[in-house]
């Protein structure tokens, strides 16, 4: 059996492993909360960690195509939906942390944030995009929308990723090391695609 054409059993095993691994950040967060080791400002820490993992999974999701191009293995794409849903899952936790723990349903303050503060406007928009993509992620939705329309909708993932990175850059007070690392990785992932596009045009 080769890595180029793994059996469906092997893919299933890979998916289970990936699913478990993707829950590790949540488990670690839960453990830290349980043992009261989230530091002096736990809400801030939970917000940062869930946001970090949402963005990380978004970038991992976007690396499926570059990995296929670089390795020639097409099964990377079979993991993509699950990875994308984990990006949405952590983004959902991030938004819930903000709405419930941070603002505690203070709707006027939330509305002011969403409309007045660019990084929250962007972050909120990114969440709406991810919500639409997650909601249309089933096979039934692909059939209902039709392949072309479905694909056009799901191209919005690039907007979401750029928005997510911008959201991170914008909120940091001074030290941009981490958000710029995300930006660099995203840039790299986009360049791989772009060079492929330019190549196929010729």
């Amino acid at each position, binding site marked *: 059996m080769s890595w180029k054409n793994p059996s469906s059993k092997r893919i299933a095993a890979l998916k289970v492993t990936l699913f478990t691994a993707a829950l590790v950040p949540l488990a670690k967060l839960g453990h830290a909360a349980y043992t009261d080791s989230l*530091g002096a*400002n736990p*809400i801030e820490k939970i917000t940062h960690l869930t946001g970090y993992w949402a963005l990380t999974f978004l970038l991992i999701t976007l690396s499926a195509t570059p990995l296929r191009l670089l390795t020639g293995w097409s099964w990377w794409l079979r993991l993509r939906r699950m990875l994308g849903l984990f990006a949405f899952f952590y983004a959902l936790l991030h938004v819930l942390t903000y709405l419930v723990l941070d*603002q*505690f349903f203070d709707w006027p303050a939330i509305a002011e944030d969403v409309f007045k*503060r660019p990084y929250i406007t962007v972050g909120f928009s990114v969440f709406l995009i991810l919500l639409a993509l997650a909601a249309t992620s089933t096979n039934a939705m692909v059939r209902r929308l039709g392949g072309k329309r479905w694909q056009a909708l799901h191209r919005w993932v690039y907007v979401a990723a750029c928005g997510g990175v911008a959201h991170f850059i914008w909120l940091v*007070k*001074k030290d941009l090391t981490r958000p710029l690392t995300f930006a660099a990785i995203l840039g790299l992932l986009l360049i791989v695609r772009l060079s492929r596009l330019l190549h196929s045009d010729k």
Partner: protein
Amino acid sequence: MMPIKPSEITPKAVFEARRDFMRGAGGALLAALWPGWLSAGEKWPDVKASAYKLDEELTPYKSVTEYNNFYEFGTSKDDPAARAASLNIRPWTVAVEGEVRKPKVFDIAELLKLAPQEERIYRLRCVEAWSMVVPWLGYSLAELLKRVEPTGNAKYVEFVSLHDTAQMPGQKYPVLDWPYREGLRIDEAMHPLTLLTFGLYGELLPKQNGAPIRVVVPWKYGFKSAKSIVKIRLVEKPPLTSWMKAGPSEYGFYANVNPDVDHPRWSQAKERRLGEFLKRKTLPFNGYAEQVAGLYSGMDLRENF
């Protein structure tokens, strides 16, 4: 092995009383000779009662000393507590100079004894919208400034923090334009609330909190309170502070706590007191309006943010 006879065992109460006595006597003796000998964990002797108290719950010592913004040691909140051990706080001197009749380089031991140490319980409000209540130890900055006799040209006071990449690893990165600089107008600096600070929770200031000497200006955002100060300059023009250089549209010279003036990227209307779940409303001048609002009469605090 010989069994220990019960009569040979010092009762716990006697043992502890003896320890207390030795600690007290030793501490008092050392403090009299050289207050700088106090080390973290030892209680400060002879603390003067202060009128500046709050009827609010103190933020736990652990939070005060493990959740810090001190970019000289890194930009994460837990970096300073983890990395500040490399800071050398003895020997330490503070040069007080500029528009003064008697410029002087003060040794830290001299500064510790310059005026009686008071415990003052102040609110601390960070520009990031979290807050603490901290029992500081120190005396009014005015006590020091009076001794160098500011001239009529002394309109502002500039604070310069230590710049030494060997001791402050965060300074290897140009996060801010090192050394850290902060400033106050002379009347703000001379205000009795402005505290020259040497300790907290009855102990010597931990390194991550700005040892051995910092200022605390309770009605301003936390970044106005310069840490690990090596130089205090009295000057004629408003000094350009590190945060003003880093983001002139986001950090003004005054930085008075003001719930009505938002930071461009976040609201200042509310704050989270560390340890509390619900946010509370931020008070104008952090609750010190009665004492300090007069300093700014006639000024537009939206413009002079």
